[in-house]
Each structure stands twice: as structure tokens, then as C-alpha cells.
């Protein structure tokens, strides 16, 4: 483990596996969207209430968080050479990602509770 949290082969594999999952998930969501009879808030909430959909959406959120982290980290490693600026950008970005992740899980949990 280093400053970059993940390094070398592991992030590369995670990036590819998450990319495949994201692609499959988007196809599934597009299929649900276009085959839905009603497109409204309650229909969407009902869709999320389905345990299968809650699970695949939860995995989607984790996948996209990792995917975004590795992508952003790559950009920073390529272009930002000052170590302090690099740490600052990575810290801000990891804060934004964790915050977004928690927010999405709150939404997912509420959709199950309500």
C-alpha cells in the first residue's frame, strides 16, 4: 500500500473488471428504462425496492467509485508532478468519492426502508 492506495497490477485489473460491470449495468438499466410502462418517481422507487436491483445498483456504485478513483489517479500521476499538489488533488477527489458513495448508499437504504 502506498500513497496511491492501490498500485501496479491490482488497480489495472480492477479498472478493467469494473469497466465490464459498468457496461453490463448500463445495458440492463437502459433495457429497464425503455421497457418500463410508466416513467415516474414512484415507478423508479419501486424498481429500486426490488432486492435484485438494489444489489446490482449497490455493486454499480462500488464499481464506479473504484473506476473513477483509478482513472483520476492515473490522470494525476501523468500530469501533476508537484508532490504537494498531487496529494491535495488526490485527497480532495477521494473525499468527493467517499462522500458521493455514502450519499448514494443513503438513497439506496431509504428506498428499501420506505
Amino acid at each position, binding site marked *: 500500500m*502506498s500513497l496511491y492506495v492501490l*498500485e*501496479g497490477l491490482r488497480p*489495472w485489473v480492477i479498472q478493467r473488471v469494473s469497466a465490464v460491470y459498468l457496461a453490463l449495468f448500463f445495458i440492463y438499466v437502459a433495457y429497464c428504462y425503455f421497457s418500463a410502462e410508466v416513467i415516474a418517481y414512484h415507478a423508479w422507487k419501486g424498481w429500486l425496492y426490488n432486492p435484485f436491483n438494489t444489489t446490482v445498483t449497490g455493486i454499480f456504485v462500488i464499481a464506479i467509485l473504484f473506476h473513477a478513483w483509478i482513472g483520476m*489517479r492515473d490522470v494525476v500521476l*501523468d500530469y501533476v508532478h508537484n508532490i504537494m499538489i498531487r496529494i491535495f488533488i488526490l485527497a480532495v477527489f477521494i473525499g468527493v468519492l467517499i462522500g458521493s458513495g455514502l450519499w448514494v448508499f443513503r438513497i439506496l437504504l431509504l428506498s428499501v426502508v420506505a
Partner: protein
Amino acid sequence: MKFKIYRYNPETDKKPYVQDYELDKVEPGTMLLAALLRIKDEQDQTLSFRRSCGEGVCGSDGMNINGTNGLACVTSLDSLKQPVEIRPLPGLPVIRDLIIDMEQFYKQYRAVKPYLVVNDPMPEVELLQTPEQREKLDGLYECVLCACCSTSCPSFWWNPDKFLGPAALLQASRFIEDSRDQDFEKRLEDLEGPFKLFRCHTIMNCVNVCPKGLNPTKAIGRIKNKMVSRSL
């Protein structure tokens, strides 16, 4: 035929500039290197560039030709748009005119241990390979280290001291694939980390420019596959 050539002599010039040259009576099929030698002989003896074999084997005359890296000796003038713009290979320091300092490039090459490592006692006969084992080295051993690929790679431009670059990684792959080498595990271990290998984003400029028609991106992919199967 018109040429625009990058000139810089750090001893006399404050900054680089582009100089125009014109050659007449250029025969069809003439290679760029022949034209540069004519300019040097007939018009300007201060023009500096490296060259040696003149037939794409030594890899000395790598330069940026109309925006694309290549070897002057195997680039036909017929294929070039005029004026032919010639610059040194990008991304490495210029020593003079078209001559670049290749130290960083060689440093990365040395870092991949470009030689066979055999820990067993040396056998009395040669280390033999089957034709199939030998075939695995095709497309890897032919590299002439002209640096056209590494100096066309944006990842190498941004991190030339940390990212090994396509040429060195092609060589890494050449020894990882070699059935006679006994340093397989250590070679893969050495390429771990965020920079050495994994700055490659499969941009594939290296494949585009390689004068020997090699495919460093594919070689890098082979190394990654080996790393994945080793970790499983």
C-alpha cells in the same frame, strides 16, 4: 525540394530556430538521409545529425519527420509532403540540431536487465530451444533501439524518469518470454508499481511509428497477462 530543419547549437544559439533548405535534382526513390547528407555536403556543414548504417539496422538516424518519428534512412522522400519538416525526436534533451541525449532512454533500457539471467551452472552445450520456444521471441528481438517509439509516447514524455517506455518494455517482454531465462518471477516483480509498466495507456503511438513494424503495445499486454496469471 524544400526542407525546414530544426537547428540549435547551445554554444552559439540562445534558442532553437528553423532553417530553410532547398535541394534540386532529387531523384525519385531518394531516402531522406541521402537528402540530409547532400544538404550537409553541398550547403551547410554545420548541420548535425546521427547516422551510421543507412539501411534501418543501426537505428541511429531516428528523427521527427513531418510530425511523425521515423528513421531517415528508410523514409523515402516520395512519401513526404513539402516542405519536409525535420525536428529532433521529441521528449529528450537536444545536444545539437537533430542529435538528442539518449541517456534517459538507455537508463530505462538497462533497468529491464536486457540479457539472459541463468542461475544454474552453465551447461557444456548451448542452451537449446525448440522452434516453438524460439517463435515466441519473434516481434520482440528485432528492436534496433532507435527510440522512435519511446519518444512518441505521451506517457514517456510526462514521466521519462519513472515510466520505462515502450522500447524498454518490449525488451522486458523479450526476456520474460525467453524459455532459457531463469529470472521470470523477479522480472515481473520489478515491473510492479504505478509507474514502470502501468503508465502505458495503450495510446499505441509506438506501434504507429516503429520502423521495424514491431508492436510494443502487444508486448506490454503480454506482460500484463503474465502478471495476471501469475497472481491467480
